[in-house]
């Protein structure tokens, strides 16, 4: 497949950048377009009846999932998806709102709990090449994520190795929904591959409770979307504690993990409780040599959609506790603006931190991969 080339002035001078959005979701509106990128043996599953099987939970967004997102003009009776066309996303969102670069994070958060491991790996591979050819190569405002399915870590590692040197890819992406806590050793080869290639690992909430996932809360399945969405950050809490206690960052000290769409106000709680318990309970995991909060602050990054809008004073206190001057990055979660405008969410961030959160922290994390 030959990609169209579209000339565009490259914005690669860090000093001139206004915003980097680390969480933008392209929508696959036609699986037939992905099928050519899928290995031949499973390609036929992508062209029939709406595409490959996807794990789902039982919930549906209440309200307009796209909020204030600019929508493309209606095409007859159908309303085109606001994230279906890269040119629309570029012009109606990035250019209109002053965003220089967007990191694409697909829209397949439940792929990580799809029961068929080989199908999940085929989807990841097909979507990765589709993303590169239709979004990243034609438009230099987009960077890609290497989507992997952790069900079969060997295939996930092979996919990372296949694409790690592609200049369009800046990180590895996995749904945070998983069969097990992400610190467990079966996942370590994925982290080894990330570390080997210097690629951050982004996790994204959304598949919790679907497919092979455990219930999305620790006490069982929620009844409603409202209950589900309000409680899913607890999955990040569990994964963080698991990854630290199982020694992931002792084994892979250069690994960095981005937590998409989780908020931040719960982080100080987990750091404090975890540190306190470590003083007495460290003997169970003697490889955890530093207070857990030291690993959390060094290895985890958070994103601003949806940042808690608690007022400037309270926000400033939490930003200080999580060392947001290094660890927080702007994200829009485009086009899913159900909770509000992503720029309104960062309006109370102190001026002294604004540029770091909008631009500099992402540049520091992703480095030359964003500038190339």
């Amino acid at each position: 497949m030959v990609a169209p080339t579209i000339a565009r002035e490259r914005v690669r001078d860090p000093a001139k950048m206004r915003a980097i959005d680390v969480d933008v979701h392209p929508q696959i509106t036609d699986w037939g377009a992905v099928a050519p990128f899928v290995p031949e043996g499973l390609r036929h599953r992508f062209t029939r009846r709406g595409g490959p099987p996807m794990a789902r939970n039982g919930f549906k967004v209440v309200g307009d999932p796209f909020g204030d997102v600019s929508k493309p003009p209606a095409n007859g009776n159908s309303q085109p998806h606001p994230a279906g066309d890269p040119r629309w996303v570029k012009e109606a969102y990035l250019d209109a709102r002053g965003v220089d670069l967007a990191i694409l994070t697909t829209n397949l958060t439940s792929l990580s709990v799809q029961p068929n491991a080989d199908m999940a790996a085929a989807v990841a591979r097909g979507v990765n090449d589709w993303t590169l050819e239709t979004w990243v190569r034609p438009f230099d405002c987009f960077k890609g994520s290497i989507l992997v399915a952790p069900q079969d870590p060997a295939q996930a590692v092979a996919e990372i190795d296949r694409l790690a040197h592609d200049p369009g890819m800046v990180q590895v992406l996995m749904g945070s929904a998983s069969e097990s806590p992400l610190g467990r050793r079966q996942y370590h080869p994925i982290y080894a591959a990330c570390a080997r290639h210097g690629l951050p690992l982004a996790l994204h909430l959304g598949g919790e409770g679907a497919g092979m996932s455990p219930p999305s809360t620790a006490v069982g399945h929620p009844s409603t979307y409202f209950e589900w969405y309000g409680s899913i950050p607890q999955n990040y809490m569990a994964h963080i504690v698991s990854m630290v206690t199982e020694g992931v960052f002792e084994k892979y000290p250069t690994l960095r993990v981005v937590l998409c769409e989780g908020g931040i106000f719960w982080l100080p709680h987990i750091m404090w409780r975890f540190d306190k318990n470590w003083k007495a309970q460290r003997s169970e995991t003697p490889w955890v040599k530093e207070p857990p909060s030291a690993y959390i602050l060094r290895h985890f990054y958070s994103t601003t959609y949806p940042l808690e809008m608690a007022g400037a004073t309270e926000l400033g206190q939490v930003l200080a506790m999580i060392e947001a001057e290094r660890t927080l990055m702007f994200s829009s979660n485009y086009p899913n603006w159900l909770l509000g405008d992503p720029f309104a969410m960062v309006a109370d961030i102190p001026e002294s931190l604004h540029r770091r959160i909008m631009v500099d922290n992402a540049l520091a994390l992703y480095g030359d991969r964003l500038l190339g």
Partner: protein
Amino acid sequence: MERHVVGRAEEIPPGGRKIVRIAGRGEIGVFNVDGAFYALKNTCAHQGSRVCLGKIVGTALPSDVYEYRYGREGEILRCPWHEWEYDIKTGESVFDPKVRVTTYPVEVVDGDVTVVLD
């Protein structure tokens, strides 16, 4: 400098301890680790419990991931309240040397175990 005789050396064999109250200074525990004597104030750095009543144990040594090495048997004092672990020889907690139980020098003079108080 104040010196306080805790007892005769043979009263505190290796692995043993003796806790004494010294007027105006509170309680002090004297421990024998492999024939050498160490004195610790009987106050945990955490919440002030009587740490010298804790078990004398070893500890899980810092290790590689998924490796387990137990060592320093007889050198670690584990607080009975919340199980913070201290190095009997230095008073330092195993998780942070800045978190420590107060220690005192000990001398054995003519068989008398003597704590030196400043």
